[in-house]
């Protein structure tokens, strides 16, 4: 009786979500998985709307006293919605949900949000949310493109724990590396304003200091690199562990990040060079992995 009522509630919520966000008939393709699929997509939509709210309200609050808080609140809610969506895909697959483009983008968006929520409070990086939210939105919009989430997914019969660990840690590391790149973009903005002496406005006022941004960039990237290391090691321990092109690219990425961070921590480099390195490495590696 209760199950029947819950199912009815699910269907009702699905209808509401579809009528609100996907009124166009060609988007009905998402219904393939039935109401459970609709609920899952609904969580991705909600997470995307919340991330948009984080970016917009954070940007609007830049004129106020605490720009970081507005974005933080909405990103916490987005994080919860992402968890629900990942839970839906994980349950469908019976393993870590990293089997299609939609899942990878969603997992990456979740990882990025997670690192922002941890770093944003640790480093008091107000405004980081405003810069993070657009990337989260882009990733989730890609996930929402019809076809990104595979339908009719079969539940895995057996699971290779090393493969699971490799996939999860690799995407998690990319969340941190993405956040380091976001901090790099923030650095470009702040550095540009300080160098050109355009010092007024909420953007500069709400930004952390140059020193703090450089520290944050390097430390977040270091965390991402350490997690990536663990991910690569797990990849080498997989049952079907052949040294694939995928693993080769991951190793090259790992080496490039190691060189960049090594130079920064040992020899030192201007903050602008570190920001260029982190943003270009992230974009480059993302394109390479997308091609693969």
């Amino acid at each position, binding site marked *: 009786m209760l199950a029947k009522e819950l199912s009815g509630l699910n269907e009702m919520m699905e209808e509401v979500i579809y009528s609100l966000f996907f009124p166009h008939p060609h988007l009905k393709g998402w219904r393939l998985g039935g109401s459970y699929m609709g609920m899952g997509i609904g969580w991705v939509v909600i997470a995307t709307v919340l991330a948009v709210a984080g970016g917009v309200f954070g940007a609007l609050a830049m004129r106020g006293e605490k720009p970081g808080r507005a974005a933080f609140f909405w990103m916490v809610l987005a994080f919860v919605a992402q968890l629900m969506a990942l839970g839906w895909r994980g349950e469908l697959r019976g393993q870590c949900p990293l089997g299609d483009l939609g899942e990878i983008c969603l997992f990456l968006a979740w990882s990025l949000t997670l690192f922002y929520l941890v770093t944003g409070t640790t480093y008091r990086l107000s405004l980081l949310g405003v810069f993070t939210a657009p990337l989260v939105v882009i990733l989730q919009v890609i996930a929402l493109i019809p076809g990104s989430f595979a339908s009719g997914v079969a539940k895995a019969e057996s699971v290779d724990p090393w493969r699971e660990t490799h996939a999860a840690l690799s995407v998690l590391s990319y969340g941190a590396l993405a956040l380091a790149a976001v901090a790099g973009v923030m650095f470009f903005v702040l550095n540009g304003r*300080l*160098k050109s*002496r355009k*010092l*007024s406005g909420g953007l*500069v006022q709400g*930004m*952390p*200091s*140059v*020193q*703090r941004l*450089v520290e944050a960039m390097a430390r977040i990237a270091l965390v991402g690199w350490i997690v990536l290391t663990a991910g690569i090691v797990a990849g080498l321990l997989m049952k079907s562990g052949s040294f694939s092109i995928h693993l080769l690219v991951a190793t090259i990425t790992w080496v490039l990040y190691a060189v960049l961070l090594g130079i920064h921590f040992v*020899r*030192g*480099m*201007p*903050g*602008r*060079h570190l920001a260029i390195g982190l943003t270009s490495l992230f974009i480059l590696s993302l394109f390479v992995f997308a091609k693969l």
Partner: protein
Amino acid sequence: MQLVCLGLNHETAPVEVRERFALTEAGLDRETEMLLSAEDVLEGVVLSTCNRTEYYAVVNGGSGVAELEDWICAQRNFSGSREGVFYHHEARGAAEHLCRVASGMNSMVLGETEIFGQVKKAYKRSLDGGATKTVLNKLFQKAFGVGKRVRTHTAIQEGATSVAGASVELAEKVFGKLQGSSVMVIGAGEMSRKTARALQSRGASSVMVTNRSFDKAVDLAEEIEGRAIPFQGWEEELAHLDVVIAATGAPHFVVKPAHVEAVRRKRKFRPLIMVDIAVPRDIDPKVGEIDEVYLYDIDTLQEMADEARKRREEQLLLCEEIIREEIDKSILPAVND
């Protein structure tokens, strides 16, 4: 029973008159005591800072500001022209004036925070001496509440309004907190002193002073508890610095790109903020093209200070509204009862 406020400040009286009425800490107690001994004065608080001397009093019946003004001038043996020197407020006007003073709206540097503490101190002195009762106790408590609200709900104290303050603001934008940062002052003039002091007040721990005339460098270093460096050796210190303030009278560039380029590796490319407050400039503008160097000249600093002053002035209407609203909603004896 009437609440009156009588005073003079930087807007109404020249310094030679202000210093005549200024009171030392010990003098304040005596003055308050004498004020209370005057006929018809029931309560009193005397506030004296470098820019103002004000008397807040609750007086009986027919006595008013004219009597109070005569009494004060007699106390200070002031026989000069009083025209335009004193201002006075009564009842609600006096309450609003005190709120403006406590909020920094009446200060020479609009929105400055020091005055809040000075008003608090003056009130506490009178309270401890038994010079305040119901009227002034309620009034001053209200003024402190209003002062806090004005500062937290408006931008009256935001931004630096002086060249030295703007330098600090820029340094904080680059380094965050200045605790433990190293500063070098090139030139031993007044601007150098002010800027170094401002940086010290925000936590800069190591301040070096260098000057062509070493004696002057030593004098300034002693004054600000810094370290004097011979002018011939200042470049060597560059590797360990976070902030450089240049304010010499040299007709040519003192700091050149080569100086910074020579120590970049040694500095591990850490950010370096350079503030050039000299005219003609001391730092070659090409130094600012080096990646980790943030170079600002006197024009930028002055512009920052002017903008901050403008922003503060724009807040005045909002502040006045808060004061009006706060006084409207409170019950203050001799003000709005």
